């Protein structure tokens, strides 16, 4: 297996992008990444794209061929593959790209992600997203995504004494970080009271505990590390790529307050990279709901089980502390175009490790981690990057 590096990154503005289409966004992100890598179309061996539900959101499937076409690569006949793992589609596309380069099958590969979610009503969007849960044994009985995470939150509060204010602290922190990120959907501060007073979605989760419906696309360019050294002045090395699965339905899990897929992918990634969780300088974790970030920092081993809420409240995961989490603003405030999220996480970590993150730059960041979850934890991906 060959070592793999990122040699270029690009990301569109996230948000309600009513002025552009899925096609416009994927072309924009792709061109930004290719420009950043300073490569030409002829050098690209393969494309992978994460997209959860083009069929439901814009009534367009066959996203693989579409992105090759939109990127101007149709006449080069570059193989292009769409992958899907619900909200982890982007992370999965990144992993497929890494595997293709590591295996020696391909040299230069683009891993991208895209989702255009705001062209349908919020009810249709909620239903499309609910397809990531167990349609027959959860949704049929009235489950929604916020409801599944609300049930995890309720049990976490009961077992570990986690409070709603501690969960709200995740949203407050991520909104603060997003103020420094020009691509973020919500570049505005919010308070604990704003979260607590916002409408209830699924008790105990309020609307400001939830990530938004968003449009956006992101892309990264991968190359073998040996080649990357020649092609790029600041390549970012992929130190680990790990993936794990679990039951589709939340109720079938071993423990309702742990995402075992995260635990397994995390352990595998740390072993591959040969590092400990405490050596990570900056992390992007999957905060689709505030409770999800608390579970993530526990399940990845950054804090003890049950201490995630307290650690967040004490500011341990804020910019300027020992482990800044979600400097991009996370899914909560940067936005969550589901297929693009996993790639945007790699984009953010690459900027941090290159020292190009502007006002949200983490000093001397050398090791970064990206954690992407599908559904309520049926899929998890963990990637570790180094300078």
């Amino acid at each position, binding site marked *: 297996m060959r070592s793999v590096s990122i040699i270029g990154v690009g990301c569109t503005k996230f948000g309600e992008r009513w002025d552009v289409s899925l096609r416009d966004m994927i072309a924009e992100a792709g061109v930004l990444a290719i420009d950043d890598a300073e490569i030409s179309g002829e050098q690209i061996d393969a494309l992978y794209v994460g997209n959860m539900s083009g069929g439901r959101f814009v009534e367009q499937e066959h996203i693989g061929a579409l992105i090759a076409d939109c990127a101007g690569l149709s006449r080069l006949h570059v193989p292009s593959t769409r992958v899907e793992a619900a909200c982890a589609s982007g992370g999965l596309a990144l992993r497929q790209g890494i595997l293709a380069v590591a295996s020696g099958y391909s040299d230069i590969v683009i891993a991208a992600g895209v989702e255009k979610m705001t062209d349908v009503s919020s009810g249709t969007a909620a239903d499309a997203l609910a397809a990531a849960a167990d349609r027959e044994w959860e949704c049929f009985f009235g489950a929604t995504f916020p409801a599944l995470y609300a*049930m995890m939150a309720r049990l976490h509060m009961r077992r570990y004494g986690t409070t709603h204010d501690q969960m709200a602290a995740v949203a407050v922190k991520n909104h603060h970080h997003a103020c420094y990120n020009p691509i973020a959907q919500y570049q505005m501060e919010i308070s604990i009271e704003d979260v607590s007073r916002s409408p*209830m979605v*699924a008790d105990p989760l309020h609307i400001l505990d939830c990530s938004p419906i968003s449009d956006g696309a992101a892309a990264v360019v991968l190359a073998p590390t040996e080649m990357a050294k020649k092609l790029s002045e600041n390549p970012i090395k992929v130190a680990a790529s790990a993936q794990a699965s679990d039951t589709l339905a939340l*109720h079938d899990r071993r423990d309702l307050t742990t995402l075992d897929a995260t635990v397994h992918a995390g352990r595998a990634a740390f072993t591959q990279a040969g590092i400990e969780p405490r050596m990570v300088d900056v992390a992007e974790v999957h905060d689709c709901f505030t409770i999800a970030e608390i579970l993530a920092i526990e399940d990845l081993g950054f804090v003890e089980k049950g201490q995630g809420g307290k650690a967040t409240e004490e500011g341990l995961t804020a910019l300027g502390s020992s482990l800044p989490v979600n400097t991009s603003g996370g899914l909560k405030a940067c936005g969550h175009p589901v297929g693009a999220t996993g790639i945007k996480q790699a984009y953010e970590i690459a900027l941090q490790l290159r020292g190009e993150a502007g006002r949200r730059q983490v000093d001397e960041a050398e090791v970064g981690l990206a954690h992407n979850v599908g559904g309520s934890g049926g899929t998890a991906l963990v990637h570790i990057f180094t300078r």
Partner: protein
Amino acid sequence: MTTQAPRFWRSIPQRYNLSGTHCKRCDEYFFPPRNLCPNCRRGSHLEEYTFKGTGSVVTFTTIYNATEDFEKLTPYNLAIIQLDEGPKVTGQVVSSSKDIKIGMRVRPVFRILGKEGDRGIIYYGTKFAPLMEPSCEDEKR
């Protein structure tokens, strides 16, 4: 859409009865039924089993913002219930949101889950209701 779900779902017997499987080899119970026991795999000795239906609330939420199919029901309670034999299921709990608690005992009830408009198909299935178990006081009388 849940109510536009494949109509064969309606003919899944487990929609209407809490019937599953029991592995005689490792003594674990499964709902919905499985063809292979995940513990014993090819060594499985599965038999059909109808659950008593009683169980306890493991965790719950009250949903205020639902998908289009369930919008008219809001707010409603959704819970993960552990059946007395062991498996966990997701289902609605028909009670006031003030009364529902972790650990609350429940029993299954047969209810309408959804309709395709006024004239369309009606979907039925299991919900749960609080179980009034005879307390010690009652027994003394």
